């Protein structure tokens, strides 16, 4: 079950993870983009965590809206509006809920994915975070339970690693054409981390990927 407390814990854990792996994400983005994805994400989720840690929230809607606004005003770049959109959709889906079950979790993630697609106009296979959010959302929708959530993490991880072999057609890596093959998409890796931390905050016991640059 996702509660206000586990959501707060998730935001803090994800912020800490991004700070820890900031250089890995920057490195990836350096190779096929402009080298700031880790810095952007860490800055954004640190801001979000600081704003949500202290506050008291009536419901998950208010909490997710606060995260969305924090991201929107602190990230910039492509990832800012995208992750902010995801949280806006969470906020709409979980409005007036103080906690949500797996079914509502699945609805929220599906709504977030739809938001990302509308915002970024990317399809699966274009080497963007859509490649990760899509199988993750599918897995939870197919099995709206703990198994489905763990399945979502493992599919997200695999999908993130699989972006290595794709030539980007959206986002900044698209300008490199075929040269983008051979490096994982940074936004996909940060998205896979997102599902790892989310599942860990909800269900616990998630074995986290080490995400070492050399393997990405």
């Amino acid at each position, binding site marked *: 079950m996702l509660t206000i407390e586990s959501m707060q814990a998730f935001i803090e854990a994800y912020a800490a993870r991004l700070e820890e792996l900031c*250089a890995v994400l*920057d*490195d990836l983005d*350096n*190779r*096929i*983009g*402009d*080298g*700031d994805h880790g*810095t*952007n994400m860490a*800055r954004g989720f640190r801001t979000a965590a600081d704003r949500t840690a202290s506050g008291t929230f009536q419901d998950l809607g208010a909490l997710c809206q606060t995260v969305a606004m924090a991201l*929107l*005003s*602190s*990230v*910039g*770049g*492509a*990832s*800012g*509006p*995208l992750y902010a959109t995801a949280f806006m959709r969470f906020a709409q889906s979980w409005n007036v809920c103080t906690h949500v079950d797996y079914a509502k979790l699945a609805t929220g993630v599906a709504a977030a994915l739809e938001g990302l697609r509308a*915002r*970024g106009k990317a399809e699966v296979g274009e080497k963007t975070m859509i490649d990760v959010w899509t199988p993750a959302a599918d897995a939870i929708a197919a099995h709206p339970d703990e198994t489905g959530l763990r399945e979502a993490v493992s599919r997200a991880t695999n999908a993130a690693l699989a972006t290595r072999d794709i030539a980007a*057609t*959206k*986002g*900044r890596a*698209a*300008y*490199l*054409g075929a*040269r983008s093959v051979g490096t994982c998409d940074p936004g996909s890796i940060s998205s896979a981390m997102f599902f790892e931390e989310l599942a860990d905050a909800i269900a616990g016991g998630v074995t986290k990927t080490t995400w070492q640059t050399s393997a990405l």
Partner: protein
Amino acid sequence: MKKLLNQADRYVDEMLDGIVAAHPELKRVPGTQVIVRAHPKAKVALVSGGGSGHEPAHAGYVGDGMLDAAVSGSVFTSPTPDQVLAAIRAVDQGQGVLLVIKNYTGDVMNFEMAADLASMEGIAIEKVIVADDVAVENSTYTVGKRGIAGTVFVHKIAGAAAEAGLELAEVKRIAEKVIQNVYSMGMALSPCTVPASGKPSFELGEDEVEIGIGIHGEPGTHRESLRSADDIVDTLLERIFAKSGIAPPDRVAVMLNGLGATPQSELYIAYRRVAERLAERRIAVHKTLVGEYMTSLEMAGFSISLLKLDDELTRLLDAPADTPAHRQR
């Protein structure tokens, strides 16, 4: 790469303070990363911006005859919608605001979100998206061409249109016309280093160069071995000619833009060849700009932009401008 800075996370903030300290004709909207004219004018307003690290773009173009506001994000990172909104609010004089956006996913999304918010506040808002970089194949399936140095011509010409008192739709039409007619391509001899990361954006061998480079330290479309300045200019120009179809009796404005570390002497050596090639092709040059107009921190390299002119664009290009980075009388 050594940097002249205090703390990486204060880089943009301190730069903006330095800009307004140096140029009393500019001011900073308090609490934001927005630079506006100290003395606004009653006219359609122009807002441009993007990540920092492209100086003098964008704040250097705020002033008479060009922009009304520049919004600066972190280095190479699009500014957030609230910053863009702050800029829009600061400059709207009731006659509407035109956003000049460079075609990057991040910039487009952040500026569009701001535009939506501004519309909701009842501000008349229009946008144009600059996509002048012919290095990248344009296709409906991809993100399309990037916006690079040609953006400065949009600032100049749309800025002159706004200054002349034209209404929003007209200023937008003219900006679109510039965008339709401007073609750019760049190359790098060395990478740049984003202050926050402290690492070079890519590694190049002692005799390698990147062709088709953007302005955010991204690698280019391909890597080549270093050739003579003339050969490199020819390579860029060939592609610009092929993609633009510029041919006699076209008349053009030319920008030879340094990316940061290339000495002006070398920019002129490159421009010499551009002039030679244009003369060979009997393409008339109406105006030339050589210098640093849209940079990538301390990247060595340059870009060439050709703008095909008609009478309207020529007249507006020739209008006076008085900004820190571009003055003409």
